[in-house]
Every structure is written in structure tokens, then in C-alpha cells.
């Protein structure tokens, strides 16, 4: 219960302590007090009357909305009923969150909505001895202005008035009016609105690509801001695709934007790819890259892949034409997560994804305009420490061609992925999984476990790098593999399934997902 009505004085210390959580780096509270005047009349007290059932249900909804909307760890609200004196606390709102911005905004949202929506009536007692019921009017709701300012209808009027000026690119002999018309007719899907995605989305929107599809399930984190240049500090906690769509609307309102707030999966990837002329893969996720390569090949949609590591990057164009190499021609199987590193583990200099993303955007425009792509079937290695770029031609005859061709290999991989769709299981608490007979297996490294111990006593600890060698320990009954994010556990579960171990599962989203549901 996160919303309460109380006829007793508010114990704010107790309310605050209930919001303490290891995942919270900040806490913000709002207290509403009874003041001694209203609209020029001296007041010496108030009474609150509530339609309790409705107020409780609506209050609970408001707090849940704030948690969902701003991604805060926890929040609560208590509203007084009965008679109050000057200085008494009438309402208390608190929110705790990883970062202060979400906490402030959630707090503000709750108090604004409470004032606006709750069936609570205020009767003011004036020093003259009179009293009066006071209607709550003129409620200013900050978040409405946020939304209005950012998306809202303002853009419609703007879109009618705004005439984009593409003269600087139209002047290029290779572009011209005909090229600009090609861009306006083009539909491009950008998967991932992070370090690579920011320049890709910005440049394609600016260039006047007619339709942009944006896919990303993540919310903006403060640690993204050094490389994800479309976003603002005030946006922390919001869905990146919403922010990116807003940015596109601000940059070029003539662009049509479609958004997906969940990553694509094996069930929809081929269909979604089929709705676009070109896909740009900008995620930090190997699994997404392989799914994109398979979906590109099967749907015949060209794909531009890039990935980065610290000061370097790799770029590959998959034309999805017969005889041209795909991702699997080079790396037939998805590498283990520990082999590929990530920005979080290995670190990254902010401009590195910027450079690689700008290269992807350039390649995308070349594809759409029909310009020559001399590195079309190469792996391009970009080293920003010494500014070298190497082109390594990929011999498609040595790739999937040896295993039935790219389309056949991709179809097989997609059908295997469909079989594995039941591998990821979501639980709110690990205790629930144990009650259903799952053996919990912790795949994290010792240093991770020291930082975040398991919330339950686990049956086994096998670091992910050893899991295949020690698979014989996982034969009795249903096993639930657990890691920090769900990536290593899902990869291990798939590998074990491939060895015929049908009762191995992975905790979807890892421990991070559990933390969100507490």
C-alpha cells in the first residue's frame, strides 16, 4: 500500500525510512502544511473530508503511475483527513530513486495529481468564525507542461509552418533533387538509440529520410550522457525511444517516426524488417546483432552493423543480396558474452560511438542514394588511437556458402531461436522460483557477488566461463541460471540446451529485473 489516508498526525520519519533502499541514491519529499491565509482571508484551521474508497484507489494509482513514469525505486503518499491546525502537515509525498532527478519529478507528479484527481474536499475555518468548502482549482501540473512542451500538439502547427532546407546536401552532384526525393521516400529502421544510434538518428532525420523506425527498450541513465548526445540530464529515467522521437520532431518535424519500446524478437523481427528499406543496427547486444543479420538476410533488407570497444570500432554492411556476406559468414555463431566486452565493463570514450555512428549514417545515406560503396563487403576496422582504418574483404564463399547459404543458415538460426523462446523465465522473487522446484544457479563472478549478494541462498555457484565444463553438475531437475543482466545466463542456457539439457532456464533480465519489482 503506497497511498494512505490518516486521521492521525503524520510521522514523516517513519514514512521516509520505509523508502530507504540499497538501489536508491537519493530521496525527495514534499510536505503540504496548513497556512494561515487563503486568498486574503485569515484561516485558523482546516478540515479534510475524503471519499475514502475512491481516494485510496485513485491515490494508489497515482503513486504507481509516478513509479512507472519516472522509474523511481519506491514512492509513497499520505493524506490527512479530519481537523487540522495552522502548521499541521496535511499531505506527505516521498520518492526514492537511483538519481535525484527522477525522485524530484516523481514527487512533483504525485502531489500535482493528488491535488487534481483525489476526491478530497477542504473546508477552511476562518478567524471570523465562518467556514467554507474550497474547490481545488487552477492546479498547475508540471508534467503536463513537460509533455506539452516536448511532444504535444505544438508540433503539428510547427510541422505545417516548417519547410526544411536541404540545399547544402542537394548541391552535391550525387544527391540533387532526385536524391532528395529518394531520401524522402525512404524508410529506415534504427535499432538502438544509444551511443551509435544518436548520430545515426540525428543525421538521418536531418537529411530528410521520410520515415524513421526507432527500437529501444532502455531508459536513459546518467552514465549514458557522455556519449549519447541527443539527450539531456533532465531526461534521466525516460524511455530513450520517446526522447529520440521528441528529438527528431524538434530537428525535422517532416519526418514520420514509429517507435518500438521493446527489443525486436524472433517472433516479429522479419516482419518489422520487411516494412523498411534499410536497417541500421546500433545496439550493444550481440544477440540483437545476430537476430538483425538473420532477419535482414531472410527479409532481403540491407543492414548496416557497427560495434565498438573502448577506442575502436567495427563496421559491416550486409546487403542481403545473394552471394554477399552476412554477419554469420564472418562469425558463424554468437560469441559468449565474456568474449565481447561491453561499454559498462570495458569503458568507452564518448566520441568513439559518435564516430562509428556517423560512419553508419554516411553508409546509410550512400545506400539510399545509390552511391558506390567500395567497402561494401568488407569488415572495416576503425582504430581511433592511431586513426587507422583497415578494410578486410569478406570472402562469402568461405562463409555461410559452405553451410547451405546465408538464407538457409539464417532460417535455421531463427527457427532454433524460436525453440529457445521459452528459455527466459521472469520471476518477481527468486523464492517463487524455488517454490516451483527450480534450483538456483549463480553464474556471476566472485567480485560481482561480493558487491551484490544473492537475495536467497543459492544451490550452486558456477562462474559463467566454467558452466560448459561443469554442465554435469546441472542435471538434476529444473535449473534456473542467474546473472546480473540475464545475458550470460541466457547464453549459457542456450548452449546447455544445445547439449540436450532441456530443463535449463535463464532468469529474464537477471538480478537487475528482480530489483525493479521489489
Amino acid at each position, binding site marked *: 500500500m503506497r497511498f494512505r489516508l490518516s486521521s492521525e498526525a503524520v510521522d514523516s520519519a517513519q514514512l521516509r525510512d520505509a523508502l530507504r533502499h540499497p538501489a536508491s541514491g537519493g530521496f525527495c519529499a514534499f510536505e503540504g502544511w496548513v497556512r494561515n491565509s487563503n486568498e486574503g482571508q485569515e484561516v485558523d484551521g482546516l478540515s479534510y473530508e475524503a471519499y475514502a474508497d475512491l481516494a485510496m484507489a485513485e491515490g494508489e494509482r497515482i503513486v504507481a503511475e509516478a513509479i512507472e513514469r519516472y522509474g523511481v525505486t519506491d514512492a509513497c503518499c499520505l493524506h490527512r483527513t479530519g481537523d487540522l491546525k495552522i502548521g499541521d502537515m496535511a499531505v506527505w509525498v516521498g520518492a526514492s530513486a537511483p538519481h535525484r532527478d527522477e525522485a524530484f519529478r516523481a514527487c512533483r507528479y504525485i502531489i500535482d495529481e493528488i491535488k487534481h484527481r483525489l476526491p478530497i474536499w477542504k473546508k477552511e475555518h476562518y478567524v471570523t468564525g465562518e467556514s467554507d468548502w474550497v474547490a481545488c482549482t487552477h492546479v498547475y501540473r508540471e508534467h503536463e507542461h513537460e509533455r506539452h512542451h516536448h511532444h504535444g500538439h505544438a508540433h503539428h502547427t510547427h510541422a505545417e509552418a516548417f519547410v526544411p532546407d536541404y540545399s547544402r546536401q542537394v548541391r552535391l552532384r550525387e544527391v540533387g533533387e532526385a536524391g532528395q526525393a529518394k531520401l524522402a521516400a525512404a524508410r529506415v529502421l534504427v535499432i*538502438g538509440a*544509444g*551511443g*551509435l*544510434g544518436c548520430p545515426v538518428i540525428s543525421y538521418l532525420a536531418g537529411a530528410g529520410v521520410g520515415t524513421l523506425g526507432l527500437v529501444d527498450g532502455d531508459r536513459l541513465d546518467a552514465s549514458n550522457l557522455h556519449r549519447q548526445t541527443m539527450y539531456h540530464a533532465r531526461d534521466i529515467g525516460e524511455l530513450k525511444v520517446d526522447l529520440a522521437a521528441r528529438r527528431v520532431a524538434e530537428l525535422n518535424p517532416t519526418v514520420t517516426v514509429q517507435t518500438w519500446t521493446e527489443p525486436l524478437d524472433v517472433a516479429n523481427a522479419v516482419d518489422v524488417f520487411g516494412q523498411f528499406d534499410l536497417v541500421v543496427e*546500433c*545496439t*550493444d*547486444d*550481440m544477440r540483437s*546483432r545476430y537476430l538483425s543479420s538473420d532477419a535482414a538476410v531472410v527479409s532481403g533488407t540491407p543492414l548496416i552493423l*557497427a*560495434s*565498438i*570497444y*573502448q577506442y*575502436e*570500432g*567495427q563496421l559491416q554492411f550486409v546487403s542481403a543480396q545473394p552471394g554477399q556476406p552476412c554477419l554469420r559468414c*564472418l*562469425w558463424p555463431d554468437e*560469441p*559468449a*558474452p565474456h*568474449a*565481447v*566486452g*561491453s*561499454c559498462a565493463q*570495458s569503458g*568507452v570514450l564518448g566520441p568513439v*560511438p559518435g564516430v562509428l555512428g556517423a560512419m553508419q549514417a554516411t553508409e546509410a545515406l550512400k545506400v539510399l542514394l545509390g552511391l558506390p560503396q567500395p567497402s561494401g563487403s568488407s*569488415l572495416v*576496422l576503425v*582504430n581511433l*588511437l*592511431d586513426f587507422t582504418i*583497415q*578494410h*578486410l*574483404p*569478406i*570472402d562469402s564463399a*568461405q562463409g555461410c556458402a559452405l553451410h547451405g547459404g546465408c538464407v538457409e543458415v539464417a532460417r535455421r538460426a531463427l527457427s532454433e531461436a524460436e525453440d529457445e523462446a521459452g528459455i527466459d523465465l521472469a520471476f518477481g522473487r527468486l523464492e517463487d522460483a524455488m517454490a516451483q522446484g527450480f534450483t538456483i544457479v549463480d553464474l556471476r563472478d566472485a567480485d560481482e557477488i561480493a558487491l551484490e549478494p544473492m537475495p536467497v541462498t543459492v544451490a550452486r555457484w558456477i562462474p559463467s566461463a566454467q558452466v560448459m565444463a561443469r554442465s554435469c553438475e546441472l542435471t538434476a531437475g529444473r535449473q534456473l541460471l542467474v546473472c546480473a543482466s540475464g545475458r550470460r545466463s541466457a547464453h549459457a542456457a542456450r548452449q546447455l540446451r544445445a547439449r540436450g539439457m532441456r530443463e535449463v532456464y535463464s532468469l529474464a533480465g537477471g538480478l537487475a529485473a528482480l530489483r525493479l519489482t521489489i
Partner: protein
Amino acid sequence: MTVVNLQYYAQLREQAGTSSEQVTTTAASLQELYEELRVRRGFSLTAEALKVAVNAQFSAWDRPLRDGDTIVFIPPVAGG
């Protein structure tokens, strides 16, 4: 003895502490050379996880070494 020029990318560059080096080796193939380097440099990745290119062309691991070859070891990377 063969003298070859090596270039490292990503995790290998990080673990080797350098982007490139020249080595003199008795290894007969790329595979043998990488195993030798793995021990000496403490590389965590095995050859199966990598691609190798010689003189700007991807190559099979059993390719013999020749004096002056420029060899690039490439791990897959995932950041974005």
C-alpha cells in the same frame, strides 16, 4: 625464425598493452603463433573466438608464416 608484424584490436590490444609489435618466432602457422602469444601476453580469448587476417586478407589459422607478414588478430566486439 620468422619476423612478423602484429596488430592487436580491442581486448587483445588492452591485454597486450600495445596496438602493434614486431616479433621473431619459430611458430610454423598462425595457430601456433597465437598460442605462443597467448602464453606470453596472457590473452584470455582462445583462437576460436577470433578472426585473423594476414596482409589485409582474412586467413585460415593453418596458414604458414612468411617473413614480413602483417598479422591482425580481431576479436568480436559488442559495444554500442
